């Protein structure tokens, strides 16, 4: 990948890791934490390990190996954290090529922790901000090595200029068992290992992955799931909201709500255009309150989106990185949708309330604003999709994520509007005008078709997942073995919706449609659609297995973290696990 011109440093330094020599003494971590004053709950550098081979003194092979890896930030040539951060807290320091983050700018959205494949940015829930390795540039200026390198007791961790040092000495490679695909970010780290590695390496943390080489000569290994392995313990199944990481539930609701609001605007605005702005009462009056309602719903959604921030009061910094960050762009787009909606709702209310005869709001302007909201809404959903299309989260990194976001909008939105209008007609006893009925029927048709599209796209992703061997495959295992009940429930709800909508359409097409029945059916379909979408969205967060560096038995082990929280161990700050709140 071409380097953006302004991200190109004068010189690029990086870490060199001799895996044969690492004895997991943790001196590098301790020196790092002492220099940077890090409390037990966060670490910028961490030594994790993989295990492989077997050991049986009674005979058999004795090739057991614990492969230790010390890893901090790799100061990537393509710093996805810098590009992802909406606040612009990251810089690529041109003197050494260090990727440096400013905790004083950070507002704690944790998006950098999503995009980084190596867990380099460390989120501190107590401070509400992220911090990370800064390559000890203050020490570099004094001619010293970074503190971790200085502390290394085994000639395992070294430091130098990239492309110079690794060319002078052979055997340096870019891949290593347990290390995520370097093509994601072009990390400035090199590995050396001369001793052979057993063919299968297993993680000791609870992440359901193991590593096998594609060929004997290869040092970089793909990953395959090992959920069925008796050595691996999977967290108990259940769609427990407690299993969600902090802030993920508000994000799930936020994305869904924004998509529904945009879909509903498209539908409502589309119907108005179709009806040339003329709706008989009570539908016209309802429409007048419809747009302010959407505006309010969006406001709620945006409020929710700030709930996961460590420092919500800094949310104004979200637009600092429009140049690179899809998150910045999304926030701008959603904000613009909100502004547009506000304007649209305001103008339409104004034109309705102004006494006739006064120069009112011209319908052209109103419609212009409406079209604008439609386009910006589409852009917002697109940006939202881009946020989740990240290589460090392979399960999400599939076109289906984008399809899911758009189809959610085009399913929930039309269903909401259609069921609203039909219910209003049923309650008020005023039948829908024929042309509006056509529009509503089309809306229902759109909802049904998008649901079919969504299913097909999901099936397409499932097919793609079946061939994967990496973290995405681990997600597949989680879907099929752990969360299968919820997946099936969602499938059932989808089927029910797929059934209810056409029945409603068919009855609606009949000569004298019974208003109550159609309204009931569409409302039912909507009532099914909402939990179905929410369950789907929560599953999306639950089953994603990010690319991570291998942890150890206690540190960076999700299994131990959940045990420490459940058992109350986490209440002791000396344990290094932040209690769930």
């Amino acid at each position, binding site marked *: 990948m071409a380097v953006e011109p*302004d991200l190109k440093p004068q010189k690029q330094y990086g870490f060199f890791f001799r895996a044969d020599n690492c004895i997991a*003494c943790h*001196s590098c971590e301790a020196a790092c934490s002492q220099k940077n004053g890090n409390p037990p709950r966060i670490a910028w550098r961490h030594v994790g390990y993989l295990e492989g081979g077997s050991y049986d003194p009674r005979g058999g092979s004795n090739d057991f190996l614990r492969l230790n890896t010390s890893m901090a930030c790799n100061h990537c040539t393509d710093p996805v954290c810098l590009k992802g951060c909406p606040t612009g807290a990251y810089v690529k320091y041109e003197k050494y090529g260090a990727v440096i983050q400013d905790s004083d700018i950070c507002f704690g959205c944790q998006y950098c922790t999503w995009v980084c494949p190596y867990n380099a940015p460390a989120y501190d829930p107590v401070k509400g901000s992220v911090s990370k390795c800064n390559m000890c540039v203050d020490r570099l200026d004094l001619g010293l090595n970074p503190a971790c390198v200085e502390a290394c007791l085994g000639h395992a961790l070294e430091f130098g200029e990239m492309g110079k040092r690794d060319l002078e000495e052979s055997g340096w490679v870019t891949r290593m068992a347990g290390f995520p695909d370097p093509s994601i970010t072009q990390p400035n780290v090199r590995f050396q290992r001369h001793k052979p590695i057993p063919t299968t390496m297993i993680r000791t943390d609870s992440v359901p992955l193991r590593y096998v080489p594609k060929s004997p000569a290869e040092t970089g290994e793909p990953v395959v799931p090992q959920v069925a392995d008796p050595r691996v313990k999977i967290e108990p199944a259940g769609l427990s909201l407690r299993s969600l990481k902090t802030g993920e539930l508000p994000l799930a609701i936020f994305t869904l709500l924004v998509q529904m609001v945009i879909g509903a605007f498209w539908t409502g605005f589309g119907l108005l255009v179709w009806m040339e702005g003329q709706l008989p009462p009570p539908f016209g009056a309802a429409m007048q309150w419809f747009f302010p309602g959407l505006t309010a719903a969006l406001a709620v959604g945006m409020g929710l989106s700030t709930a996961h921030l460590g420092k919500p009061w800094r949310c104004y910094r979200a637009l600092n990185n429009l140049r690179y960050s899809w998150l910045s762009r999304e926030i701008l787009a959603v904000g613009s949708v909100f502004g547009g909606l506000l304007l649209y709702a305001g103008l339409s209310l104004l034109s309705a309330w102004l006494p006739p005869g006064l120069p009112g709001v011209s319908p052209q302007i109103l419609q212009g604003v409406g079209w604008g909201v439609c386009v910006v809404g589409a852009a917002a959903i697109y940006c939202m999709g881009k946020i989740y299309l990240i290589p460090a989260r392979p399960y999400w990194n599939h076109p289906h994520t984008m399809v899911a976001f758009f189809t959610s909008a085009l399913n929930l939105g039309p269903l909401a509007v259609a069921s609203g209008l039909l219910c209003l007609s049923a309650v008020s006893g005023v039948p829908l005008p024929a042309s509006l009925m056509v529009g509503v029927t089309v809306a229902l048709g759109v909802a049904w078709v998008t649901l079919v599209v969504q299913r097909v796209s999901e099936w397409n992703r499932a097919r793609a997942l079946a061939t994967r061997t990496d973290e995405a495959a681990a997600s597949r295992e989680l879907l099929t073995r752990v969360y299968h009940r919820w997946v099936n429930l969602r499938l059932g709800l989808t089927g029910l919706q797929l059934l209810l909508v056409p029945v409603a359409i068919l009855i609606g097409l009949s000569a004298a449609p019974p208003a109550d029945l159609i309204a009931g059916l569409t409302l039912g379909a909507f009532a099914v659609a909402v939990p179905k979408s929410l369950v789907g969205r929560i599953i999306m967060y639950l089953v994603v297995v990010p690319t991570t560096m291998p942890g150890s038995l206690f540190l960076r082990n999700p299994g131990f973290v959940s045990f420490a929280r459940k058992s109350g161990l986490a209440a002791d700050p000396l344990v290094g696990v932040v209690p769930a709140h």
Partner: protein
Amino acid sequence: MAMWPFTSNRDRQIRPINIRQNPVDEWVPTTCGYCSTGCGIEVGVRKEGERGIQLRKPVAARGMPAHPVNQGKLCLKGIWEFEAITAHDRATHPLLRENRSDPFQRVSWDEALSWVAEQFQRVQSVYGRDALAVASTGQIYTEEFYALGKLVRGGLGTNNYDGNTTLCMASAVSGYKRAFGSDGPPGCYEDFEHTECLLAFGSNLVECHPVIHYRLKEALERRKFPVIVVDPRVTNFVSQADLHLPIRPGTDLVLLNALAHVILAEGLHDGAYIERCTAGFEEFCRMVAKFSPEFAEPITGIPAERIRQVARLFGRAKTAMCIWTMGINQSTHGTDGVNGITNLCLITGNIGKPGGTALSITGQCNAMGTREFSSCSGLPAYRQLENPEHRSEIARRWGVEEAFFPPKRGRQMTDIFPAIESGEIKALWLIATNPMTSMPNTHRVDAILSKLDCFVVQDVFYPHESAEHAHCVLPAAMWAEKTGTLTNSERRVGLVRKAVDPPGEARSDLEIFVALGDKLGLGRLFPSRTSEEVFAEMAQISHGRPCDYSGLTYELLEAYGGLQWPVTPDLVSRAASDQNVRPEMPRLYADGRFNTPDGKARLVALDFEDTNERPDANYPFWLNTGRVVEHWHTRTKTGRIGNLNKFSPIPYVEMHPADAEELWIRHLDHAMVYSRRGELKVLVQVSARVAPGSIFIPFHFARGANLLTLGLLDPISRQPAYKQTAVRITKVFEETDGG
């Protein structure tokens, strides 16, 4: 906080980013107070406060760059050691209660010491002098050991006086005495630079002594030589080694005899050295004759061919060395194991020469200091109670009656506890040790400690497990809160300067000993009252002894970053005239003369008798215990430092995948481990680093592995065999099912 100016990317404004600075006002030179490696640490002190009241706060630590041991490096414990000073639960005031069931009352030092003195006198007058036991440590300074020894041997006069070093180093001491005539490791870390073959027994050097491993690694980077590790578990040290001998627990003596057998059979021994410097060769030959590799194979589990290969490597190397730790010492035949090693080195002439040595890697920071000067096992400077000349010499120097000294050493740590159980001992003074966690069979220790009439605990922390039954708690100053010396594994005496004041009313152990001496009316024993004065007295008293301190002063120790005894004034004056000479002795016995009466080392003929508890149908697993790198002994310090404790905050058991599968136990499940002594619920790590049929639990945790251990004693050193216990394991269900 300083601001760091960044010229960032072109499209950005120049923006300063904070990089944390940790200003230090003064770096105080010390020697690390954890293990016996003896690293030089500088403690960074920040002075806070104003107008006269200045608070000195420890805020950083760094290795001393030019230090002869660690050359600027530190392990993670050393890096965080300064945080132990400010950790929570520091004991700050003397506490007293008449009855164990009452809550503690805060009292003044005067009150506390008067009570202690009165109780000691009462118990001794009613039940006899030996009804008081003193259990000391390897954690305080040598000056303090010397003062304590004086107080106990010369004042209190109880013969039930020992240290927790019996739990870790006693076998090495007994072995050295039996082979060389006196204690004292003959080699040094620099031997790694010269050796052609390193044989390590029961040592996970990488985790237990990371900086010694650093020295080994440095030597290997410069010059490759074979590293062979004998260990039942695939430790991180084993992963670094060239050859791994996966031995069956407790059978090391058979392996050692078999190695000697091959060396003698193939003529790889140093006949001239054996003739000139050793005694007992014939009997030794007769004994090892039956230990052929084929004989050893079924016992040790190591193929005969592998034994021959290692014996040849060791025998043919121009210089070869052995190191060992608890795998040898903590065994029912620990002393024999040590002598197996000294035998191996002696028959190949590998003692006292660069790269050829039998180096016991010691445990605690001042285990050596207690061996040298605490008088636990005799009288100061390797003098023995059994020797009338030694008794009269020390009696004269201390100004006590010669007859006051018992003619024979009394009970050791592991025998003191059963004597409390049987009512022979009524009072216990515990100094900087934590037997509730460190002694085998915790339930029994717990019951024993609750039987005492008078139980005084002197420690830097309160509360801790061993203080639960105490009547009196004396708060002590910690490492770097007082000045004194420590001796490391290679006989290097290192200085610790006081960096900060102790918290509250805590006092240095030396001050406590002297003050208690005054209360007991034994003030005459303490003409020297500051650590430097005591050091001068020690230097004087050690003159002419193997551990000769007579040339040492604090200034010299500080200037050289520690010196290896013996150091005579002669050596010092020679070094003063030559910049290239350090006034120290890197190796003992270089001249081939040993401290035995005839000057010859003893080859000890050792038969093997397996007396251990062994797995059977009811308890089918071997339990092995050991250390992890992040924790120090009973976690009183490291368990209170989050950045260490987080690496293993709770105990765990390592279990082989095949065993786990059979027991339906999955990785990260919990299991119950049962022995005949107790039971323990523990987190399971499924890992093939332990052999099938074996499990490993780190010993650091209170009410942990030692609930299970049996700890049969070595008949000579009285050291417990922690590493061979039979256990049974079952799965625990509720932990996995809890949603």
